[in-house]
């Protein structure tokens, strides 16, 4: 065990983030984007147990057998001072009070552990090294294991908290939300019984099922329509909405314009009040929107569907590059969504209002967002305006539940009215951060 303290394993970073919180660390390393070889994962895995797990002896036994090495536990240090040296020869360390084990293992060993630890294991996540965009709040975060305790036991992801989605009584019940993307992992336990046969359709030639073998669609569906993970952490907005899955991107994440147009038509014909599209193509300054997309989106709006689209990730603001809203997010009838980080600063990659009339309308949480991922991974944190978009879609569903007779224009107006103003340029954030009613 090279480093027992969670999240403090790399010397190459200046702000390490594990899960949802940042830990000040070594400041000598490169900043994000400096080094293309910057690692995303430490090579270790978190085993996260069900909330009420008290007995870890069976899990310790499986770890011991599978890894053929010593397994240390926080209970070993009840009357002793914890130190790295004391567990240096252990490949697994169980934080019993947190219900979490940190394991150094190969992927095939992790799969074996998952199969053998029968009950009590909620999920397995690779330990991520995420290079947080520096923000002032980082300086005030507590250090060490106390910070991990706080980070490991939140009741909601930062995005859910920031948008107030955990405070509303609305759930999106009886509101149809279409996610047009790479599909959904239909075996994911969090969506059991949520998608009907009529609520799924593939527009990818040669692929009949909406089963998601990429992951992007499952992540976006989780944010818009998911609920909580087995430990009780809320990660989805409209947890009782009716999910409509349109597979318009194949399992490599590629999709033709015609597939997307067909998906929009299908969702609108199925009376989805909200259509979420975390997809798009790069648009260069001076280019117009695509007429066919605008016609399809305007038609969907006329039929009662609000169409929410990612603004795109083609910018590098830290180097002074801001690119226009992508296509089809740049269509006048679409709601273009940008991304903010946990400090409510605009995401470095987020596009902005550059081309006249092709503006960002609103922002959502889009950096380090935890949501569902195809099994067996089950959950994963990623970033992008793709992640911000389903927050707006989910909250739009809450507004529709609250006001069943609202037209898309009225939902849009309500989004604007509820949005939290941020001290950012209008061209970056539009009306502000999306907030739940």
């Amino acid at each position, binding site marked *: 065990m090279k480093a027992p303290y969670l999240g403090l394993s790399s010397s190459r970073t200046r702000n390490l983030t594990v899960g949802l919180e940042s830990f000040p660390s070594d400041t000598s390393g490169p900043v994000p984007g400096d080094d293309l070889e910057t690692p995303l994962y430490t090579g270790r895995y978190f085993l996260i147990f069900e909330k009420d797990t008290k007995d870890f002896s069976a899990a310790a036994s499986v770890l011991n057998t599978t890894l053929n090495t010593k397994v240390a536990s926080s209970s070993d240090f009840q009357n002793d001072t914890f130190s790295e040296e004391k567990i240096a020869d252990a490949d697994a360390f169980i934080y019993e009070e947190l219900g979490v084990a940190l394991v150094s293992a190969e992927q095939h060993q992790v799969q074996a552990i998952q199969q053998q630890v029968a009950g009590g294991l909620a999920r397995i996540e690779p330990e991520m090294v995420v290079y947080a965009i520096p923000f002032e709040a980082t300086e005030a975060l507590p250090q060490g294991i106390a910070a991990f305790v706080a980070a490991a036991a939140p009741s909601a992801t930062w995005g859910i908290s920031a948008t107030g989605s955990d405070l509303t009584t609305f759930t999106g019940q009886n509101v149809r939300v279409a996610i047009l993307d790479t599909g959904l992992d239909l075996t994911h336990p969090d969506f059991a019984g949520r998608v009907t046969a009529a609520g799924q359709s593939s527009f990818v030639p040669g692929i009949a099922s909406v089963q998601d073998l990429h992951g992007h669609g499952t*992540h976006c569906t989780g944010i818009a329509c998911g609920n909580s993970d087995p430990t009780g952490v809320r990660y989805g907005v409209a947890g009782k909405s009716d999910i409509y899955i349109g597979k318009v991107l194949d399992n490599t*994440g590629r999709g033709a314009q015609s597939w997307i147009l067909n998906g929009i038509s299908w969702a609108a014909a199925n009376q989805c009040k909200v259509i979420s599209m975390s997809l798009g193509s790069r648009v260069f300054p001076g280019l117009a929107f695509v007429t066919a997309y605008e016609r399809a989106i305007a038609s969907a709006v006329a039929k009662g569907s609000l169409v929410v689209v990612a603004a795109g990730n083609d910018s590098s603001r830290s180097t002074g590059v801001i690119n226009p809203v992508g296509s089809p997010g740049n269509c006048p009838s679409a709601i273009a969504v940008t991304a903010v980080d946990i400090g409510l600063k605009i995401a470095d990659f987020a596009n902005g209002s550059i081309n006249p009339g092709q503006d960002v309308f609103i922002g959502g949480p889009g950096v380090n967002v935890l949501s569902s991922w195809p099994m067996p991974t089950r959950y994963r944190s990623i970033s992008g305006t793709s*992640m911000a978009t389903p927050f707006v879609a989910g909250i739009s569903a809450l507004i529709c539940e609250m006001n069943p007779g609202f037209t898309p224009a009225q939902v849009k107006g309500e989004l604007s009215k509820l949005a939290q103003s941020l001290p950012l340029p209008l061209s970056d954030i539009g009306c502000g951060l999306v907030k739940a009613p």
Partner: protein
Amino acid sequence: MMVDLIITLHKDDVKDMASLLERFKQEGLSISNVTDYGVIMGRGDKSIIEKLSQQKEVESVMEDYYTQLPPPEADIQ
């Protein structure tokens, strides 16, 4: 060279869809889908793009193109 095409009609001409489809077929367009909002999807030789573009009922003709997400392992998606 055969290409996939997206043809958008002017709004005022959507009502004449049936006759326009017949005309486009005669130009060599193989039609795969027609929407009620005036967008037609089909396949034909690249040379028909210019012919279709010149028809007064047609607002735009473009080759179908692909959008691509980053790979699943990417941190920014």
